[in-house]
């Protein structure tokens, strides 16, 4: 069993007390695969290192299996840490890297060897036992790093951007391998990544971080379907953001006046007040497109400005008559493609949009990745 509770943890760095993790609380359940995502510098690696005990929090407490960790050094926490650079010991071959944990804990040679062999076979690396780290490919080094953490008997695996240095194809393969392994061995895993697609593919739950705070924690579907923050709506998946004002609130529908007095409706459940300044978010894949200019509910009339073929989908940039710009993605094989300068009507279902209060510091600032 291995569950983790982070309670009101704060960590600052340097004499200027730059806040890396700001009053963060988080619960990771036993055998859960949780990803920490967010832009560079948001504090996700710092949070992971705090959990590992590599750095100490200024405030707050971290519990592993309900035991407070403030006085427990990293070597006694029972966690496995996979570093972004792998940190494979360059003076040891694969075998000695993987069996380092059992040996340093004074496990007898026979048991250490058995553990080493088991994990290396699991990671399909036993044949490369005598290779040194500089003789391995990036993917192999990554697997050795995971094997080393597992052989040390970790029940909690902390992965710091473990796939960041690999090329796209290998990254895609390995992310499923790691998830399968974690699930097969019934481990708890916390995986740091800035790649939201990677997080969506492998996680039971995702925590989105920004500027040292956790903005939202939920399953990939929850974050995608019901983002609670503009930043999350933008970071998890992609969204079009249209600025407007609440014209009327009637039952489950909110009437919104967009730029140029264009009226659209959203079925977003969050209560809004009349005349409140808001931002309407609609995902590109939630938009439908028709040829010609047609008056329909939630219809935005415009012209195709740019077309990008991306393989599975084609991406259209539409210049709406009211001056807004929206992105529409459509399956590439779904009918005749649209061409540049073609007049189109873009529409969406009220249920597939989200309303957010207009951020005090402006929309651009709220969406900024740094």
């Amino acid at each position, binding site marked *: 069993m291995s569950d983790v509770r982070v309670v009101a943890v704060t960590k600052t760095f340097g004499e200027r007390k730059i806040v890396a993790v700001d009053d963060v609380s988080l619960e990771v359940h036993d055998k859960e695969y949780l990803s920490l995502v967010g832009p560079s510098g948001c504090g996700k690696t710092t949070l992971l290192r705090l959990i590992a005990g590599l750095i100490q929090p200024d405030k707050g407490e971290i519990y592993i299996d309900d035991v407070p960790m403030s006085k427990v050094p990293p070597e006694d926490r029972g966690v496995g840490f996979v*570093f972004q*650079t792998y940190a494979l010991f360059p*003076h040891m071959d694969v075998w000695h890297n993987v069996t380092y944990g059992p040996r340093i804990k004074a496990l007898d040679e026979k048991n250490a060897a058995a553990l080493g062999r088991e994990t290396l076979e699991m990671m399909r690396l036993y044949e490369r036992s005598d290779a040194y780290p500089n003789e391995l490919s990036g993917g192999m080094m990554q697997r050795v790093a995971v094997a080393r953490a597992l052989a040390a008997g970790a029940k909690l695996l902390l992965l710091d951007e473990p796939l960041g240095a690999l090329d796209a194809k290998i990254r895609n393969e390995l992310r499923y391998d790691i998830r399968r392994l974690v699930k097969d061995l019934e481990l708890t895993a916390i995986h740091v990544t800035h790649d939201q697609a990677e997080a969506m593919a492998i996680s039971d739950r995702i925590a989105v971080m920004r500027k040292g705070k956790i903005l939202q924690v939920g399953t990939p579907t929850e974050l995608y379907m019901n983002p609670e923050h503009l930043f999350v709506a933008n970071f998890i998946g992609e969204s079009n953001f249209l600025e407007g004002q609440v014209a009327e609130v009637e039952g489950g529908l909110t009437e919104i006046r967009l730029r140029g007095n264009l009226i659209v409706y959203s079925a977003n459940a969050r209560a809004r007040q009349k005349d409140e300044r808001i931002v309407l978010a609609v995902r590109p894949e939630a938009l439908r497109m028709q040829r010609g200019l047609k008056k329909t509910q939630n219809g935005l009339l415009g012209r195709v400005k740019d077309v990008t073929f991306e393989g599975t989908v084609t991406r259209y940039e539409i210049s709406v008559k009211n001056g807004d710009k929206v992105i529409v993605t459509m399956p590439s094989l779904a009918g005749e493609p649209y061409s540049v300068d073609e007049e189109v009507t873009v529409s969406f279902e009220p249920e597939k949009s989200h309303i957010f209060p207009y951020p005090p510091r402006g929309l651009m600032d709220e969406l900024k990745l740094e």
Partner: protein
Amino acid sequence: MTRITKFLDKISSKPIARYAVYVLGILFFIIIILIPPILGITLKLNLFLTVVNDPPLMSKALSAIFNSFAVATFVGLIDLAAGTPTAWFIARGKSRWLNVIDTLADLPFIIPTVALGYSLLLFWNSSYGISGLFGGSLISPGWILVILLHFVFSFPIVVRVMVGALLDYQYAYEEAARTLGAHPVGAERTVTFPILKPSMIGAFVLAFARSLSETGATIVVAGTFENGAVFIQTEKSLGNLAPLVFASSIMILVAIVIFAMIQIFGSRFKIPIKRVSPSFEKRLSGRGAASSRDGVTFFVFFFIVLIPALFVLVSAFPALVDGTLSNALTAKGVFWQQYWPSLALSLFIGFVATLVNVIAGLPMAILIARKRLGKTVSSVFDVLVNIPIIVPSVALGFSLGLFWTGLPLGIPELLLIILAHISITYPYFVKSLSAAISRVDLELENAARMLGAKPFAVFRTIVLPLVKYSFFAGAVIMFTRSMSETGATTAVSTTLKTVPVLLVYYIRQLITSKGVGMSSDVGLGCGFLILFSILILLVLRLVIRGRARY
């Protein structure tokens, strides 16, 4: 851009011009640096047998040579044991005084060794120093004082090398070991030290070589103890050529063999990691043990290294009020009439040796760093460049003297001293600069070439600005090394006296059977040298502050 720069830029794109520069650099190295110390001694090898046929003399010589290597080995080891924790503290500590300690740690390296020797004598042996507390001489001149002296002046070398290694070391390795179950001491023993092993071996070799080559200060503190350098010096003063040839040739040969063995077998030496005792290592990793380690480190640094090294300044203070300062400034008295010309001579020799090596060492540094003549040839030069460092300076000087004076035209004494200093200081510049150039990403040079820069322009505008701090530091190290050089200078000089040679002469007169006497003249003379060295160090620190990456 001047016309000359334009011309050099243009001509540098011609392969023949580039190769001509490298060939000249190589020829300088072979003719001036490499051949004279090796060939000089072989010209007189016939005298070798004279000593072999005189068993008591041979036994005396061999015993002195053994003492040299025994002291150098022991000093190298205790330097590692004491210098590594100090380096650890500097590289990983969080104290606001780190910069001060870092600067202080360099001091014994740049203080001329003869001043160091006198300082240690005053501190350990005279009643003015710590011996005064015990009512007698605490440590008499002899092997203990030689070891203390060699430990003090080679300590900064080990600290500097290990600080660099620790700063370059990826801390993630140690963190990984911790998350795998190793206690801090266990992680250091099994991961950090094995990874730092090449640097530790390098630091040991430098300390070993520096100890082996030191002469002037050793003579001052050796008493009746005789190592190779003292033996050669004594035989020279007696005019006995054969023992000089015997001892010099053996010391050169053994030093080269030991160095080669360290190069070959050093990488195979493994720090054992199999036996682990988690509970013992956990205890050693505790706060109490760490505080004790830091305490011992501080004690050694301040009370064994720094205070004894600077103690000579105590003897300089009375000179400020008893009229010695006025005598010094007006060059009154025999000592000061000799001191200032000697200082001027030392400065002149240091300046010329530095200038020549900066010009002649540059192509060799590039050749080694960029492997311009292929990996093998460059690696061979990289090893050969070390020879003047590892050969005892008095033996090197003696051999050089034999070579240059053996030429049909003869050679002026001043030029001979300059050649000896060029030989001894050359490796310091080439090693420091080649290491810096090899750290400059080759792609930067390629990018400049793609933007239209000729090879010389690439060096001028890209490489040099990036390595200028190492360039400057290398030049300063050469200059200070030349300023404190005694062994080779005594070996080749007959009438000219550089400042360290002069001070050795006067300090020896102060040593009596009752201990060392204090002379305000000598104290102030050493004080001037120390002040001068500290000024150089401060200038160097100011220039390279925060920019020492290259």
